[in-house]
């Protein structure tokens, strides 16, 4: 009995956490999977239709377009945000003559992340308005050129959304990468310099392998943030023009909270969940490869 109690003790301690996680994660998830196989009458289950919603999403042109838009937004943001974050992290990691300058730069560069998604959307909507935004005004005044409206031009709306999302997220990536860069032992870099390694070689063979895990974690976080993001799309483009920026997440919001098709929205949510799991498993797989340090 005493032995059993000793073995059971850790499980008893983590039981409250498991119950809480089950209530806020597993239970809603199972309910969503269940609801995705029904037609719903507002919040009540109606007719069982099996995988019909999934078929409607995955076989229709609209569904495939939304999946495509989700991937374009996510990977476009990832490339832009990570590139920018990397460059700035490397610069901020260098020694500054006056420490206060580095502190000021770090504080200013974090500001986009401190702003809410809603404010970021409103800010960029105003900035990029060709009729009453400052950018349009400057271009008209200086070059007598009326800029195209990026948020209402189908070919420009998605790049604008990518740029705005990357602007909002790059500080997070920059902070993670900067923190990781600061853990790279200086003696390794000095030894490499003595051996005649160039800056790029030092980065490629010493610095990057040591910060690789942090970079991967950052990439996974940014991927999950962007893939599931709705607020910025609602504020900036409303999913338009002509569905150019309608993603799976936005469509889920629209179908559930505006149109009351909760069964269909649940199916969309399950598909998003599967993609999220896929991204996470990919990260775990890559992490399991050989560690350098």
């Amino acid at each position, binding site marked *: 009995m005493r032995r059993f109690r000793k073995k059971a003790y850790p499980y008893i301690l983590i039981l409250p956490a498991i119950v809480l996680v089950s209530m806020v994660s597993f239970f809603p998830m199972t309910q969503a999977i269940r609801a995705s196989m029904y037609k719903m009458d*507002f*919040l009540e289950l109606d007719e069982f239709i099996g995988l019909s919603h999934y078929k409607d999403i995955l076989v229709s042109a609209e569904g495939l377009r939304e999946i495509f838009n989700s991937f374009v937004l996510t990977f476009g943001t990832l490339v832009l945000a990570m590139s920018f974050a990397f460059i700035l992290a490397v610069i901020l990691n260098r020694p500054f003559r006056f420490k206060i300058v580095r502190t000021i730069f770090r504080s200013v560069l974090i500001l986009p992340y401190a702003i809410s998604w809603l404010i970021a959307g409103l800010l960029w*909507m105003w900035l990029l*308005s*060709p*009729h*009453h935004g400052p950018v349009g005004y400057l271009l008209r005044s200086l070059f007598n050129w009326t800029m*195209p*409206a990026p*948020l*209402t*031009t*189908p070919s420009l709306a998605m790049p604008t959304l990518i740029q705005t999302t990357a602007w909002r997220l790059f500080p997070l990536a920059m902070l993670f990468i900067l923190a990781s860069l600061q853990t790279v032992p200086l003696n390794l870099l000095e030894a490499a310099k003595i051996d005649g390694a160039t800056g790029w070689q030092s980065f490629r063979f010493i610095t990057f392998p040591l910060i690789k895990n942090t970079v991967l974690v950052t990439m996974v976080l940014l991927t999950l943030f962007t893939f599931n993001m709705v607020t910025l799309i609602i504020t900036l*483009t*409303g*999913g*338009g*023009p*002509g*569905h150019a920026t309608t993603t799976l997440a936005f469509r889920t919001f629209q179908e559930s*909270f*505006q*149109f*009351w098709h909760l069964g269909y929205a649940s199916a969309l949510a399950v598909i998003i969940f599967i993609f999220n799991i896929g991204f996470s498993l990919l990260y775990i797989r890559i992490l399991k490869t050989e560690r350098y340090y």
Partner: protein
Amino acid sequence: MKSRILLMILCAVMAMVMGNIVFAQGTIKIKLWTFIDPTAESIRSQAHNYVHQKFMEKYPNIKLEADVIGWKQLDPMLIRAVKVKQPPEVSMFYSPSLMLHVNAGSIQPLDRFVQDWTDEQKADFIAWDSTVVNGHKYGFHYDHRVTGMVYRKDILDKAGFAYPESLGELGEQAEKLTDLPDMMGFINAANTVSPINTMEISMPIAYSEGGRLLHEDGRAAFNSPAFAKTVNYWKKMVYEYKAMPSDVALMDNEAANAILYAGKGVFHITCSHRVGYIRDRSGLSEKEWQFGPIPSFQPNVPSPTAVFGWVLAIPTGSKEPEAAWKFIEHFTSPEMQAYLAEKPHYMPVRKSAFDYPWFETPEASDVYNFFNIAKEKPLAVVLPEHTTELWTYISEVFERVIMEPERIDALAGLNEAAEKYNKKFGY
């Protein structure tokens, strides 16, 4: 000594707590879900606050608490709250959502409160039938807003133009006035970002041509020449009259309105409740911004006027329906309606409100104007449960035609939208 002082403090605190409990038991608390913050500084907020305070003065045993919820979130939150049996005692909703709430079972009929009302009492309400479904009364408007067109009278006068008597004349005037420096002749976004806005501005025009939204059996009827003509009118405004850039037609409604507030627009189809706001934001007065009926394609025949508005209703499962009813009665009383007309210029929902002295003053001319426009040719249409989704399909056609004017035919686009709508709803 110390312990005695502590004991006295403890007793005092307990007495206060018990006193509150006893006091609270004599007080009825009702929660109102509203999108207007009564503590904010705007004239509309202050007017609502006044109505709330007057209610609590009239009924000292009823305490009203206003929960402020974004207007787009009111509908989904109310339906969910009723489902989990945590509804407010009284809630607002926008009138196009009436069928949504009736079918969701989230609002209860108010028949028992009005069963003894005479026909005269009911007739005092300008749009009594607008909240009656299958013979049951589900709510009371506390404001009406009529569709019409604001226009810059000063600019028209300078150009020597009279108020346009047809949509053709409107287009020609808008075209010429766009030549003025930094001016757009016509500003009206019509897209999927704000489908309800698209409904408010285009439905009267489509109906003036004999169009209708749905057949009796619920199938789409908007794929008609009348709606196609309306969609093509927006295309004409952008590409033929060049009175509005395509990006303005495709942008969010509020972003488009910002151009008006900057004083750079001439004509704008809107609802009456926005007139005061447009004047206030643009810093111009009723001498500049005036309001008239929406023209139709026929000369001297205005489009019918749609009447929308916010409705007060008692949610299903409301714990204090009697107190909630008292609030609705108070809010829609002639006295409060007259006050709301005077301050934020709401159009009253009752004819008897017009007997109040303020309506004799020149300041009331706006409100009389709204009332007369609504009275002349009201548009009676029952909006379906899925109004937002229905108008998203129609707004998509506006978008596509404006984005690809050479490639997308309006009627073909409406046919596609109708097919999608019918398939989605099982017709």
